């Protein structure tokens, strides 16, 4: 009985405390691995994708659990199985596709080798490293605002319509150097100015304040690769601050 209390409480406590959440997941890794193994019908290792799926499913269960749903572990088990099923179904669809790495010629060359490939392996990893550096720096700046990437993800608009509206505001702000300077200086989004200038409803912007903030920071100096990744959203440009 105490066990039950303990888990339920920990789950609720972990909801807004990422460290507690991680501790809880870590404590239940054997359980998670066990559920995945049960599903697979064989021992699930750390290398298996299913392990990662089971972990995120457990995390989902933690977020969506409520005592009305009964005891936590059976609920988590349900969610894990459900997500593993989703994953299996998705993978099954991919079985039909030919693997790029499979050998197709007598010399053992693979499809991959034979395809015209613009990027060189070396360039690719240098690019990845540069991106990683940018992201690290972005993370650092966001931390000075008291934000983590997880916070941003939680605050991100879901609907395409809202996402596009925010994109519009960000595109507008990208050309307003003063606004970006103000942002970095005051550590706050100048919402009134943004709403006024971009024409996007203030309510929408406020609701996604953290997300807007992150996207605005990305418009400041030093995030070329990330902006390049977002080219679809941003169009070209981005003010230098």
């Amino acid at each position: 009985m105490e066990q039950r209390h303990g888990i339920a409480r920990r789950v609720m406590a972990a909801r807004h405390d990422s460290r507690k959440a991680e501790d809880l997941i870590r404590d239940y890794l054997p359980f998670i691995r066990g559920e995945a193994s049960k599903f697979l019908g064989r021992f699930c290792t750390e290398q298996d994708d299913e392990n990662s799926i089971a972990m995120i499913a457990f995390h989902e269960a933690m977020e969506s659990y409520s005592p009305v749903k009964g005891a936590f572990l059976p609920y988590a088990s349900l969610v894990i199985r459900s997500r593993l099923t989703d994953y299996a179904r998705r993978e099954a669809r991919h079985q039909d596709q030919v693997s790029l790495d499979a050998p197709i010629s007598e010399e053992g060359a693979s499809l991959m080798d034979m395809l015209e490939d613009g990027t060189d392996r070396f360039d690719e990893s240098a690019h990845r490293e540069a991106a990683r550096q940018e992201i690290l720096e972005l993370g650092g700046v966001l931390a000075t605002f008291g934000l983590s990437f997880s916070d941003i993800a939680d605050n991100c608009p879901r609907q395409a319509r809202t996402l596009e509206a925010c994109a519009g505001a960000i595109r507008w702000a990208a050309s307003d150097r003063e606004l970006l300077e103000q942002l970095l200086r005051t550590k706050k989004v100048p919402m009134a100015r943004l709403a006024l200038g971009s024409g996007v409803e203030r309510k929408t912007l406020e609701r996604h304040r953290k997300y807007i903030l992150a996207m605005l920071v990305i418009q400041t100096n030093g995030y070329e690769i990330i902006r390049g990744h977002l080219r679809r959203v941003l169009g070209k440009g981005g003010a230098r601050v």
Partner: protein
Amino acid sequence: MKYLVMQCHMSYATVLDEDGRFLKVANLRYTPGQTVEEVFPMARPERKPSRPWAASLALAAACLVLVLTGLLNLSGGTVGSVYLTINPAVRLDVDRRDRVVDLEGANADGDLLIEGYDYEKKDMELVVEELVERAVDLGYLHQGGRITLTLDGEDQSWVVSHTESLTTRLDETLGQKMSVAITVTDSHSAEGKAVIPVTPAQTEAYGESDYGESDQTAGTAGDSDYGAQDNSDSGYEGATDYAPDDDSGYEPTQADSGYEPAQDDSGYEPTQADSGGAPAQDDSGYEPTQAGSGGAPAQDDSGYEPPDDDSGYEPPQDDGDSDYED
């Protein structure tokens, strides 16, 4: 669609797609800076965001405080409110027919306690009972715990009758399973309280009460903005019967039963004002009425009488007896 991996955690990774969406996805051995084409996104729960916790989750206090408040003319025809505090604190608004018309958490644990609970139009006593059961399920209320009733009302007779019936009901609900003390507090007189243990076996002599969590109730009623909802000029005068019972020394022995919360690793402290308990989540717009708001009752058609007359309610601390003991 391409996804740029931003950060990796044990159970998920955060990625950014080309449309500017940040997503939490399964961490399939990603590294930050990597671009991937396929991700397995985390399903986001369909619930309204909970309020941020300011206080750490309380494990230790097995103390249930019920505050009954009679109020007039709130929207929805609320005639009274029940403040239920274990260590979680919640407020129930009750209409003329004793149905719950609103339920809100008054602190972080309170939000937690009522999460997902459907109170709509349920009978007040049933709701209280179910919440108490939930509290037991979640481990807030244990053997040796305490229940406190805080009464505050414009309509004193409402307050009194509901106190009695609730106490009886809780007695029945819990009586067989565990012994719990029920304490009555009057939010109007900040410190006023009467201790009424619901304990088959014990007969505690308790004049003075070093009520460890009493500051919480007194605090909740008084200085922590946790008092009767001040929308109506409830003007509850004459709270004189609820003379302040300065706590000093009472420990119900069942609280000393050596009860240790099973997981007391949360650094729980009784939320006496400074740990950001009730005060910190003062987003219920809830003001103490005893903070000098006293005026005449807005509508005195309820047969309201000053408590020192014939309300029939005797605050036990006047004579040290427990009128609720059976």
